[in-house]
């Protein structure tokens, strides 16, 4: 708990600085917040380099989150300048709470605390949507809050059943630590364990954006401010999946039901990959396209966790890291271009290679990285996953994954070519 409180210094500092904008120039406050978060990132990065295994299962997770949040803080400066009607204090208030929720989800070893933090992240990120106040944002926020909260209520029912099974330990809050669950999970009746696993998977899977619980995701991620979309897509989805994985690994045993735990994760993973990659083809709104790509990427991670071998889990974790960095950067860039062209419509971005040559190159590299072009990061983790599927002789899943990867590569390449070189209809091509 002491470590958790220390980790909260970052968000707390942001809150304090945010309230300073009542007295000082909001632009300076934004800059101070970005530097404050950057210092936090440096601290965690150095601590990770000095003590790589410090205090948690995945010690790299916190520096990664801090890196993502730092990126979001710097992008927020520009975003707030472009949206002068947005109250700076309120924006950073919700932003800091969202940051805090991400840190708790990444660091906690307690299932209930993770549940609370995920639910809290839904609320504060919805508040950022509500702050926008336009019709699309309000509709997306309502859908997001209702669907995600209903999903989380299913997970809560699972937690209650879990507590009922382990209540005889009289450990109270500590019943839900992953270490305790791993030691005592045999005390849970198999049928209860299977039901709890299904509930947790469907419940937290809703927040992770797994198909068929994904319907809120494209709306919410595409409407949210770009600095928040990056965090939602890049960090939060993967973190929710990590919570599912922690839980499944803690209580996993040979299952009595066919569709439970890892099986279900594989099924949802395959569905997410296929639906996500098919949907990529028809998207014209760039942020929606990135949101559907997130569904596909979460599906790939779910397949990795579902297989459960060390190679597959490493592949899923690598996928999470690469996806977080690439997707967040793409959302930030998409936000920038959208502001410049006053449109999120991909085909309205005319002549970006001429107007923003350097950013266009970056956009192309990131989009190709997301498509899985070797030797960029995601190609490596996807190759590892294919290898582990081959080892486990999961032929159907392997074929589905390969189909999904080919489809998403084609769709993203097509969108990239159109966004970079498509000639506007009202202009003629100068061939001289």
């Amino acid at each position: 708990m002491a470590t958790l409180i220390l980790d909260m210094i970052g968000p707390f500092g942001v809150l304090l600085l945010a309230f300073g904008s009542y007295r000082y120039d909001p632009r300076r406050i934004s800059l101070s917040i970005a530097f404050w978060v950057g210092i936090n990132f440096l601290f965690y990065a150095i601590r990770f380099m000095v003590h790589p295994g410090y205090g948690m299962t995945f010690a790299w997770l916190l520096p990664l989150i801090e890196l993502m949040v730092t990126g979001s803080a710097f992008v927020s400066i520009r975003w707030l300048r472009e949206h002068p009607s947005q109250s700076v204090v309120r924006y950073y208030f919700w932003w800091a709470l969202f940051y805090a929720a991400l840190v708790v989800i990444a660091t906690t070893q307690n299932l209930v605390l993770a549940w609370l933090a995920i639910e809290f992240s839904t609320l504060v990120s919805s508040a950022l949507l509500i702050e926008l106040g336009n019709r699309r944002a309000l509709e997306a926020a309502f859908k997001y809050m209702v669907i995600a909260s209903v999903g989380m209520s299913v997970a809560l029912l699972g937690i209650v059943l879990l507590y009922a099974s382990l209540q005889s330990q009289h450990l109270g809050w500590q019943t839900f630590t992953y270490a305790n669950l791993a030691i005592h999970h045999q005390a849970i009746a198999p049928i209860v364990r299977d039901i709890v696993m299904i509930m947790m998977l469907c419940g937290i899977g809703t927040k992770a954006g797994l198909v068929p619980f994904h319907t809120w995701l494209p709306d919410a991620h595409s409407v949210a401010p770009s600095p928040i979309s990056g965090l939602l897509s890049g960090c939060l989805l993967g973190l929710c999946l990590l919570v599912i994985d922690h839980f499944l690994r803690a209580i996993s045993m040979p299952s009595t039901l066919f569709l439970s735990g890892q099986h279900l994760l594989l099924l949802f993973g395959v569905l997410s990959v296929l639906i996500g990659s098919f949907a990529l083809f028809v998207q014209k709104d760039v942020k929606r396209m990135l949101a559907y790509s997130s569904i596909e990427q979460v599906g790939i991670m779910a397949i990795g966790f579902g297989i459960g071998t060390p190679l597959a889990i490493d592949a899923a974790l690598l996928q999470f890291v690469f996806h977080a960095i690439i997707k967040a950067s793409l959302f930030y860039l998409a936000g920038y271009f959208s502001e410049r062209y006053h449109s999120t419509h991909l085909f309205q971005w005319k002549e970006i290679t001429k107007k923003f040559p350097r950013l266009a190159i970056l956009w192309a590299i990131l989009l190709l990285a997301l498509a899985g072009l070797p030797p960029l990061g995601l190609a490596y983790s996807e190759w590892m996953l294919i290898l582990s599927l081959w080892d486990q002789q999961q032929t159907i899943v392997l074929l589905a994954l390969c189909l999904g990867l080919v489809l998403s590569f084609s769709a993203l390449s097509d969108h990239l070519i159109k966004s970079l070189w498509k000639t506007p209809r009202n202009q003629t091509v100068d061939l001289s």
Partner: protein
Amino acid sequence: MDSLALLMLISSFLMVVVRNVRYVLLFLSLQGWLLWGLLFQSASNATEVLVIGLLTLLVKAFLLPLILYRVSQKWPSSALRIRALPIWGYLLGFVLLLSISHIMPPLQAAGILHQQVWFFYGLGSLFLAYLQIMSRKHVLSLISAFIAIENALVLVAASIAGQLPLMMEIGMLLDLILSTILLAWLSHLILRRFKTVDFTAMRFLRR
């Protein structure tokens, strides 16, 4: 005390079928009172019961219904009306209640059902709250259903675990308060921007 749990189920049913938002809020407040009574019955630790009981009463019987009532006060009377529940809603509700009898035996065999009657009423209330989410399109009715889900979960928890850890109960209550405040703010903005409280209509009006 089984009658209190039965009243929970009845109030959940009435929340689904009534056609005015004000009545929905009335039944929501009633659920807060019922839960307060049930918590005292089920729990063993006196101090924790006192804390949770008082918080439940304050939040679920007064604060949350009051917040939603304040929102509804600013609305015209036409915005308070709810459409009739379709026939499939009644049928689905009936099937969901019947399904509980199939869910209970394996849990009973696993030895985690302390209060079978409460569990039946609790799970019934939960299913009816989910039905309300599925069948209702009125924004405030959906928000009430969301709170009713939480209320039903407390009853289910009381029937199988007696009492949840204090930190968990407080966390759930805080979550509920924050979500209700945000949803109330959201519903207020929705009526202002869309001139409708029908969630499905928003999809067509959003652009």
